[in-house]
C-alpha cells in the first residue's frame, strides 16, 4: 500500500522533472521557427523578431504602413510551433507558458538548495544536539554558542557574510560559486535550528528507556543508536517537515547574492515584462512543492508509527 503510493509519487516526480528538462533543453533554431511563418507575414513584418530567449522568439508584426499607428500582431515561436498572441486571457496564458522554462530553472535552484542544505544541516545537527546534551562541559558550551549565534542572527546577514564578508577577511576564503555560498550559509543555519529539534526529541524520550538500556549493559552510544534515536525519529518528522517548508521559502533570500532562484527569476521577469502576472505561476509552483513535501512527510510519519 505504502509502496504503491511511493511509486506513484516517484513516477509523477520523474514525469515533472523530465518535462522540465525537455523544456529547458529544447532550443529550436530561429530558422526553424521562421520557416514556419508564411512568407507574406515575414514580408510584412516591420520587426522580424524583437526578442529571443532560450526557448522562444517573439515576432511583432505590424499591419499598415505607418509603424506608429499600425496595429500589431504578436506571434510567438515556441518549441517548433508558431502561435498568434492576442491580448486578454490567451495572451496571459501564453506568456505564462513562455516564462515557465525560466521559472522551472529557478524552481530547480530553490528546491535543490532546500534539499541539500536541510539534509546537510540535519546531519550536522545530530552531532550538535549530542554535543549539546553531552556531560562534557566544554563541548556542550561550544555547541550552545553555535546554536546561539546561528539562531540569534538573521539568515540574510549570515548569507551576506559568507558571500561578501569572508573574502574581505581573507581573499583565500572567497567563494565564487553562489550556490555553494548559499548552501554553506543555509546548512549552518539549519544545523542550529534542527539541533534544537533533535535535542527536544531525544530528551522527550522517557528516562526509563535510558535506565533499561543501562541495566541491560548497553553503552551510551549503543543506547542512543539502537533505542533513543529510533524512537525520536517519529517525533522529529513534523518539525523537520516544517523546517523544509521554511527553508524552501527562506531560499528566496539568495536574491541578495543574485542567485537565480524562483523568487529572483520571478522578479526579473516581472520587471522586464512590466507585469505582476508572473507571480501567479510562481506562487502556484511554491504551493505545489510545499504540498509535495507535506505529502512525503505525512507518509513518512505513518511509516514510522507502526508500533503505536
Amino acid at each position: 500500500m505504502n509502496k504503491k503510493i511511493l511509486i506513484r509519487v516517484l513516477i509523477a516526480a520523474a514525469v515533472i522533472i523530465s518535462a522540465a528538462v525537455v523544456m529547458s533543453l529544447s532550443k529550436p533554431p530561429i530558422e526553424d521557427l521562421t520557416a514556419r511563418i508564411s512568407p507574406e507575414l515575414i514580408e510584412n513584418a516591420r520587426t522580424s523578431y524583437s526578442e529571443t530567449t532560450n526557448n522562444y522568439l517573439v515576432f511583432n508584426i505590424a499591419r499598415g504602413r505607418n509603424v506608429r499607428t499600425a496595429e500589431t500582431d504578436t506571434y510567438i515561436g515556441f518549441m517548433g510551433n508558431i502561435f498568434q498572441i492576442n491580448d486578454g486571457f490567451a495572451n496571459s496564458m501564453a506568456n505564462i507558458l513562455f516564462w515557465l522554462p525560466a521559472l522551472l530553472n529557478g524552481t530547480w535552484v530553490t528546491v535543490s538548495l532546500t534539499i541539500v542544505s536541510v539534509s546537510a544541516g540535519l546531519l550536522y545537527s545530530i552531532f550538535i544536539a549530542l554535543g549539546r546534551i553531552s556531560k562534557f562541559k566544554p563541548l556542550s558550551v561550544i555547541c550552545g554558542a553555535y546554536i546561539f549565534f546561528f539562531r540569534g542572527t538573521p539568515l540574510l546577514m549570515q548569507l551576506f557574510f559568507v558571500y561578501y564578508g569572508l573574502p574581505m577577511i581573507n581573499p583565500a576564503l572567497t567563494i565564487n560559486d553562489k550556490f555553494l555560498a548559499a548552501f554553506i550559509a543555509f546548512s549552518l543555519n539549519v544545523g542550529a535550528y534542527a539541533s534544537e529539534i533533535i535535542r527536544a526529541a531525544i530528551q522527550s524520550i522517557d528516562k526509563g528507556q535510558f535506565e533499561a538500556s543501562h541495566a541491560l549493559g548497553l553503552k551510551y552510544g549503543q543506547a542512543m543508536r539502537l533505542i533513543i534515536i529510533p524512537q525520536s525519529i517519529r517525533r522529529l518528522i513534523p518539525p523537520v517537515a516544517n523546517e523544509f517548508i521554511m527553508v524552501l521559502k527562506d531560499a528566496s533570500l539568495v536574491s541578495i547574492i543574485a542567485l537565480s532562484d524562483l523568487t529572483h527569476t520571478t522578479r526579473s521577469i516581472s520587471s522586464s515584462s512590466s507585469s505582476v502576472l508572473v507571480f501567479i505561476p510562481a506562487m502556484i509552483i511554491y504551493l505545489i512543492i510545499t504540498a509535495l513535501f507535506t505529502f512525503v512527510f505525512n507518509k513518512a510519519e505513518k511509516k514510522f508509527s507502526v508500533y503505536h
Partner: protein
Amino acid sequence: MELIRTEKVCKKFNQLTVLNDIDLTVNEREVVCIIGPSGAGKSTFLRALNQLEIISSGKIFIDGELFLHRENNATVSRVNQTEYKRLLLEMGMVFQSFNLFPHKTALENIMLSPIHVKKIKKDEAEELSRRLLADVGLTDKADEYPSRLSGGQQQRVAIARALAMQPKFMLFDEPTSSLDPELVGEVLIVMKKLAESGMTMLVVTHEMGFAREVANRVVFMCDGVIAEEAPPNEIFSNPSNPRTKQFLNSVL
C-alpha cells in the same frame, strides 16, 4: 555465599537523606523482599545497587568484590572497567514501569542486549529468547509490539529480557505496582517460578502475600533506614519494631 553486601550506604539529595547507613547482605539462592511505606528509600537502594543512582557514601560488594566505595560524594575506589561491566551484567533489573523498548517486538526486546552486549550470534540469541518467552508463558506474543500487550504481559517480557543476560541475581523494583489488580497474579507466578528455580532475588514490593510466601527474609525500610529484618513468618506475625507493626496494620 554472599552475592550482595552493602556497608553503611548513604544517599543524600542536598539536605535530604534518602538512605542512611544501609547494611544488607543477600546470599546466593536467597529471596529477600523489601517492604515499607513510600518514600522510605526502597527503590533508591535498589537503583543504587546497579548504579542508576550514585550513592553518597558507603561500600557496595557484588559477588564478593568491592564494587564501589564512596565517601562524602567522592569515589574512593571502584573495580576496574572490565570488572565493573561484568558485575553490572550480573544484576538483572525489572522496573515498575516495565521500560520495554516500544519500537521493538517482544522477541527483539529480549534479543537486543545478548546480540549487542554479549555479541552472541543472532540465531542463538533468538533461540534463547524464544525459550525465555516460553518460560514466561508468552510464546505466541513473540512478534507483538509492547503497545499491543497488557501490562502483565509487558512485565513478563521485561523479566525475560533481564534473564536473557543470564544474571546471577535479579532486582525487582515494585514489579506489580503499576498493574491492574487482575494482572498482578500472572507476574507473581512468573517470579515465584523464578525463585523456585534457585534465582537470587531482591524484591521491592507491596505484595505482602508474595513476601510471606516466597521470601526467605523480609526487610522493613522506613525513613531511609532498615528498621527490621526477619524471616517472613516472624515479621508478619510478631514484628518487634512498633513502626513495622503500624505499617503492617495499615496494609494488611
